[in-house]
């Protein structure tokens, strides 16, 4: 029967060509790009055979240097070399402690600006340099332009940080297939390759961030039950403590060059203690500072005990949020280079009272998982796996007394939409400021402000008579849009906002334009080509959808679609971009009913195996 023959709507039209898709682990300390090469998830190497690219950007020369080349400049020219930029992404100057950064920071158009000899650079621009670098090495390896990328972010990254990451990707010319949480990517790497099911803890201690997530894997469905973490805790802090122990603190903060050298030594000591029990430091840093000290493994774990304890406090909180006991955990996945430290392995193993999943390279796990997910999203596999993510922090709006009214509670599965009704508190009030905030605390000042917008045109009424419905929609990337509407009269006032942080669409477009720096003609012909491609795609997809699901529509609806379809087809042959765009939009809107009905049919089909009294067997 026709009913049973429908193909999956999203996959129906594009022929089975392999699309180039990558997974990117954009880390605080290091970044990696991975892809599927002959059905194996592989981390891509740059031309110097390096897989792990330091997340360091140097503006000493133009164009900017990234990775190992930039690191070389860190000691020569620390003022123009930026590391750990991820800690600044999506933040403004009040969110951070400038003293923990050696570079000159300033408030710059809602975000942070870092002064370099090539001008003021924002964290988005700096991150995009890293992403551009990764994009280039992947395209060199794969021999062509990328269709898209999955980029990982820490699970508790808030709205602003996710948006900033996505903006950085756009600026780097990457099509973002999806932002996914780092721990979720790690679970994909383990879950898919080894087919385990159950409740899992992902313990991820990277260079600059700590993340823990509780995941449930069952029948091809990944659900994040809870996440917790600390954005200011990572392997770097272990280095810092060790460096402070090696000399006294004042020396460290005095001179950036001395600080860099000391941290480098500390890192070396830390890494060495993973393989050997005992280390002897004998290094001359300047003419006055010469370090001669001995340290063993247990001394080091004692020294850094409070840091490890902090991670376990987060683990406890995540378990509580997931309402799961330690005994119900079926596996603990170790992610991030810092989990190589024997003291951490030991503490986590003791806490969960079981051996750890650590047989994949902890530096590569996240990128590998992202690559597998990217490959799936690009439609290159037939895997019946779906990744469901949750929103890490609650979203709400400010009400009287600076108290937050939650609209979307944290850990809601994405995508999600929720609305709440509010009213005016003054007679004749015609406008309302809607202040969107994110966080778990009750007071506005303890949460993160995402943006404000004003709803105007409320008809004057007595206090409490107006009904204002504020709706939040969070998409699968965890990105938010907010709208507000007055309901009590027929007058409708609504507004869509993008929270007021990061870059606007226009700003990104402008930056992209200027980076192309191409002639007007080029721009026009590129725009025309894009419009034609999109139109052709829509024509193909509509034809196929109509072929298989004509029966869902009334004949008048079919006629309307067929008319718009033939109009668009004809227009493609002309070179009129504006007409092509208009007719594309038109067909898009006439096919809405078809798309909606096909979706309903998919739901029916999905459940058909589940219904006992099915007559259509």
């Amino acid at each position: 029967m026709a009913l049973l023959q429908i193909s999956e709507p999203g996959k129906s039209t594009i022929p089975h060509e392999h699309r180039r898709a990558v997974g990117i682990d954009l880390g605080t300390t290091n970044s990696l790009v991975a892809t599927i090469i002959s059905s194996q998830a592989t981390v891509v190497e740059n031309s110097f055979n390096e897989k792990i690219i330091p997340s360091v950007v140097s503006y000493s020369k133009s164009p900017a240097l990234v990775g190992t080349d930039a690191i070389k400049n860190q000691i020569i020219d620390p003022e123009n070399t930026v590391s750990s930029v991820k800690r600044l992404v999506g933040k403004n100057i009040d969110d951070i402690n400038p003293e923990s950064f050696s570079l000159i920071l300033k408030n710059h158009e809602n975000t942070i600006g870092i002064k370099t000899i090539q001008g003021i650079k924002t964290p988005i621009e700096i991150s995009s340099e890293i992403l551009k670098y990764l994009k280039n090495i992947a395209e060199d390896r794969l021999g062509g332009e990328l269709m898209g990328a999955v980029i990982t972010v820490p699970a508790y990254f808030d709205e602003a940080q996710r948006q900033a990451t996505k903006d950085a990707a756009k600026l780097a010319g990457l099509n973002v297939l999806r932002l996914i949480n780092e721990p979720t990517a790690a679970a994909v790497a383990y879950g898919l390759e080894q087919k385990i099911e159950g409740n899992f803890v992902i313990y991820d201690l990277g260079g600059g961030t700590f993340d823990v997530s509780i995941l449930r894997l069952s029948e091809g469905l990944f659900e994040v039950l809870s996440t917790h973490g600390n954005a200011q805790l990572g392997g770097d802090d272990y280095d810092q403590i060790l460096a402070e122990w090696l000399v006294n603190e004042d020396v460290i903060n005095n001179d950036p060059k001395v600080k860099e050298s000391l941290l480098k030594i500390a890192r070396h000591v830390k890494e060495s203690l993973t393989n050997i029990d005992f280390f002897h430091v004998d290094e001359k840093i300047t003419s006055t500072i010469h370090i001669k000290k001995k340290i063993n493994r247990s001394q080091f774990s004692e020294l850094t005990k409070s840091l490890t304890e902090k991670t376990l406090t987060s683990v406890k909180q995540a378990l509580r949020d997931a309402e799961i006991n330690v005994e119900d955990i079926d596996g603990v996945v170790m992610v991030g280079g810092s989990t190589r430290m024997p003291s951490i392995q030991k503490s986590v193993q003791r806490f969960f009272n079981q051996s750890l999943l650590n047989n994949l390279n902890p530096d590569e796990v996240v990128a590998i998982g992202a690559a597998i997910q990217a490959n799936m999203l690009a439609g290159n596999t037939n895997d019946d796996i779906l990744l469901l993510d949750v929103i890490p922090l609650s979203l709400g709006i400010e009400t009287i007394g600076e108290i937050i009214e939650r609209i979307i509670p944290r850990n809601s599965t994405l995508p999600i939409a929720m609305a709440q009704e509010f009213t005016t508190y003054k007679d004749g009030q015609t406008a309302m400021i809607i202040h969107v905030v994110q966080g778990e605390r009750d007071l506005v000042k303890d949460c993160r402000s995402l943006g404000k917008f004003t709803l105007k045109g409320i008809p004057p009424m007595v206090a409490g008579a107006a009904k204002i419905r504020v709706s939040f929609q969070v998409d699968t990337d965890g990105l938010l849009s907010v709208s507000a509407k007055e309901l009590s009269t027929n007058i409708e006032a609504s507004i869509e906002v993008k929270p007021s942080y990061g870059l606007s669409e226009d700003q990104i477009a402008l930056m992209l334009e200027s980076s192309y720096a191409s002639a007007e003609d080029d721009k026009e012909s590129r725009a025309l080509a894009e419009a034609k491609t999109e139109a052709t795609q829509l024509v193909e997809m509509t034809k196929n959808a109509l072929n298989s699901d004509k029966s869902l529509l009334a004949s008048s609806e079919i006629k309307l679609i067929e008319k718009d379809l033939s109009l668009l087809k004809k227009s493609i042959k002309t070179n009129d971009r504006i007409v092509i765009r208009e007719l594309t939009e038109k067909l898009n809107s006439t096919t809405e009913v078809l798309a909606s009905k096909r979706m309903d049919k998919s739901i029916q089909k999905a459940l058909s195996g589940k219904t006992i009294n099915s007559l259509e067997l």
Partner: protein
Amino acid sequence: MSLNYYEIFNIPAEFKIDLKNLHDRYGEIQKSIHPDRFTAATKVEKEQSLIKSTEINEAYQTLKNNLLRAKYLIGLHHENEPLPLSSAFLMQQMEWEEELEEIEGIEPLIVFKENIKMNVQTETTRLSKLLDQDKNWEEAQTSLGQLKFLTNLLKKTTELSYTFSDN
């Protein structure tokens, strides 16, 4: 023609629910309509997939939670505002709250917690009968109000037991 949450999953509209079955159905539906399945689709298909997927999530979040499910089920049959809780229950509330405030050690707290847990179970059973057998929506609303209070109290007690055991 919009379906109610039970109809979406094609399961009986009852308070008693097979969570495993619900989860399976939820998974099957999301696998067929989730935006991840439409990365190469048309704009309209992407939008529709986002709308439907959001709807399914809303329905699933509501049905998988006892309190939300009961409220939703009552709402399908009954529109009146819930009656205020009985004065007997209000008295009992105050007694429990006072008792909790005076507890200082972990052992009496565990005893208290077990007692509340039992009350939650009893009230859940009562609510289940009121909804699925008696179809007494009015009384079910009162029962739901009491269950809400008990669930919150249990949560508060559990959180307190964490602070006790952390110190």
